[in-house]
């Protein structure tokens, strides 16, 4: 009798959660070492991974660690030894691994990790906020935010391909909205093993491989005579990740027959006066609200960033310059930052500075702690952006939407 996995794993359409798709990516990418430590919502992926392994459908070293710190340290070392690795965490669990998270990027190890996005304590909360994933944005980590289980195929496979490219060698976080994506099943077309093999070459650590036949020292003490050069290398790697991602995305489209934009997901933007911007699963209520507003004659569109690192500065400038006004929705916060806006708002604003045509930009904080972003919320935000566009006047106030009071 075929195992449950066998029934599920063939190429074709299946009903899967985002976490489950990520587990399939691990299997299809033939990941060598996986470490787990429980914290919701990311840990659903480990339930699927361990099931695949238990049923003999996937061969990997699966190590339950004693803490997140150990969990990330183990795969960090395995990656240095040439193993393709996978791990993940959520919220404060991810933060408990902050030391290995920083070191992994510093050592240029292509770890791929799932962040099941979750509010940081306190108060203890399970729901989605992006602050956990965003905390590694300055360290050299690549970060993408899939919005559907189907998109996890693209962003998950690209994560390995780009991270392991010797021009890059940087870790990648797949930031998946807790509950909305980690726990919700949707129809997904799984790729076949041959396609994946054609897209994803084996991980080759080259002459940086930690192996007795290749005597090297990794991570010696390096003071001010060296550190700036090391950082300059990381900056170059991060720059390269942009080009390599574009290249890899073109290959992905060819091999898997898809037709997506590498960095931006635009919805109804052709004739839009204003757009709403953001990352992750809020694209769904945004798109539906846009459809409804269109019926009222409001020309609203959406521009969603698929990758936050590398940040698609040029693409974004080109895209947003077409609109009168832009609203940026943050499912995160950056207390005390310029205009008390969120992280995405501040970065988009910085990216737009000095563009030939800069639209008015307004920031919103919405959907924190997993609170639903309602259609009315989206409409309220869109209306504010529309009137900003009509008045042709900057509105730097950052509004909290969907908050009582």
């Amino acid at each position: 009798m075929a195992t449950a996995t066998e029934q599920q794993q063939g190429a074709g359409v299946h009903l899967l959660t985002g976490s489950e798709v990520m587990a399939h990516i691990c299997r299809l990418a033939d990941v060598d070492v996986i470490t787990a430590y429980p914290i919701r919502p990311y840990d659903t992926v480990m339930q699927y991974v361990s099931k695949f392994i238990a049923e003999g459908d996937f061969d990997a070293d699966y190590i339950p660690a004693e803490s997140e710190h150990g969990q990330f340290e183990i795969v960090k070392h395995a990656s240095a030894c040439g193993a393709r690795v996978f791990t993940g965490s959520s919220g404060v669990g991810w933060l408990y691994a902050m030391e290995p998270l920083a070191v992994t990027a510093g050592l240029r190890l292509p770890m791929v990790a799932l962040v099941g996005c979750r509010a940081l304590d306190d108060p203890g909360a399970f729901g989605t906020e992006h602050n956990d994933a965003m905390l590694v944005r300055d360290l050299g980590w690549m970060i993408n935010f899939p919005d559907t289980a189907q998109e996890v195929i693209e962003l998950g496979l690209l994560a390995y391909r780009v991270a392991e490219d010797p021009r890059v060698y940087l870790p990648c976080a797949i930031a998946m909205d807790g509950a909305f994506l980690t726990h919700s099943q949707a129809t997904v077309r799984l790729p076949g093993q041959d396609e994946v093999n054609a897209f994803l070459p084996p991980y080759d650590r080259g002459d940086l491989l930690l192996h007795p036949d290749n005597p090297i020292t990794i991570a010696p003490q390096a003071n001010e005579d060296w550190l700036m050069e090391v950082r300059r290398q990381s900056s170059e790697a991060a720059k390269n990740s942009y080009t390599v991602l574009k290249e890899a995305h073109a290959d992905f489209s060819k091999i898997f027959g898809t037709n997506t934009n590498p960095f931006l997901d635009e919805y109804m933007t052709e004739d839009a006066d204003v757009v709403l911007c953001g990352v992750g699963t809020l694209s769904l209520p945004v798109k539906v609200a846009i459809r409804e507003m269109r019926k009222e004659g409001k020309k609203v569109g959406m521009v969603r960033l698929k990758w936050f690192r590398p940040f698609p500065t040029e693409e974004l400038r080109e895209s947003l310059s077409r609109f009168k006004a832009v609203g940026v929705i943050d499912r995160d916060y950056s207390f005390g930052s310029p205009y008390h806006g969120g992280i995405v708002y501040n970065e988009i604003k910085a990216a737009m500075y000095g563009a030939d045509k800069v639209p008015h930009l307004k920031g919103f904080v919405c959907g924190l702690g997993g609170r639903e972003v309602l259609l009315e919320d989206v409409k309220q935000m869109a209306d504010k952006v529309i009137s900003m566009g009509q008045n042709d006047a900057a509105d730097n106030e950052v509004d909290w939407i969907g908050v009582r009071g």
Partner: protein
Amino acid sequence: MSVISFEVIYRGIFQKSLAVKISRTLILAAVKEGKPGISFGRYSDSPERNGIPAKQFGYIADNEEELETVAAQYEPKQVDISICVDDTLCKGVESWAWYGLQPINAVTKPGGTLIVTSNQKEDDLVQHIHRRETPYKLAIIPGEASFAGLWVYKDDGTDARCLAAALKAEPTMCSIASLESAIRENIGSETHVEAAREVYEDLRPVEIEPGQGNDEVPFTFELLKWHEMRQGVVIDGVGGHEGFRGGEGGYEPGRNPYFKKWSTRTMRPVVSFEKCTKCTLCWVACPDTCFDVTPDGFFDANMEACCGCGVCEAICPVKDCITMVNEVVFDERDSQWQMWQENKEDYDKYMDEKITTGKIDGRHPITGLAGAFSGIGLETGHNPETAKIKPLKDL
């Protein structure tokens, strides 16, 4: 504009408090006369590590603006006074803060003064100090390297003596009266004030002419550019091995080609090959894998690798087979075994002479450590009866 800058060159842990004390007290003496100053250690020196050469710096200015002008450059590129509190550092400094060997007088201004605490004579010490193109003055304060530790402050008056020598070198810094009162306030007893006064009166710096001194070109290497470095904070491993001095027999392990440890040690082992039983213990126990195996199976401590820890002497089971000797009495880094092979009688004479002249007195009763590591107290340091450090007037 008149700014006086100085550096104190010392060994990590054992002399850190001493260096700080010298630097601070000098500034505080000038502050008494309304002059602002700053005192700081080089952060990347890692002075919390045993015996690592490190530096403390200070500036004294006439006013705040002058001070800011010099302090804007964190580390002085040139100093009026260099104070070296361990004479084995005269061979040069390999610190954590840079790569290669830096001459002890590298940043002493032309015409500036290098003050050294030492029992050596100027002529002998100059043989170790790298020659340069500009003249400078050398002033010796008689005495052994002081132990004034990180955790305890073993007081032997070195601080007060160095302060007085610095003032003598740059008398415009402050009056002797201000220095004496700063010593009273920050160091303590009248004995220290006396010691300072004595040095102030008796110190006789000598002129060192261009071209005088050690003609060895200091070991340097170029730091790589960011795009030349390996990725992933990876450096080449030190692997491999070859025969003794590249020959057929024996064994020499691969070693770090960049860190020579020439100035890391304050003492070095001298081996009596006549007494050695080839028991292998020194070879196995040396923490830095310094011993090369000679073709005839002896163990030869390589002076490109030895940090002078004394473990080999402690572990050697044969009496007087390995003796730790003060590094300051050596000019060469040759293979002892090769010297012995060339002429056994000459080698024995050489060994006896070094052991006698470089005998390490004042060893710590428990650790056996010597020199900067020994812990000589104020009594032995300054008491004329028991002094290893003799008052100048008795010399």
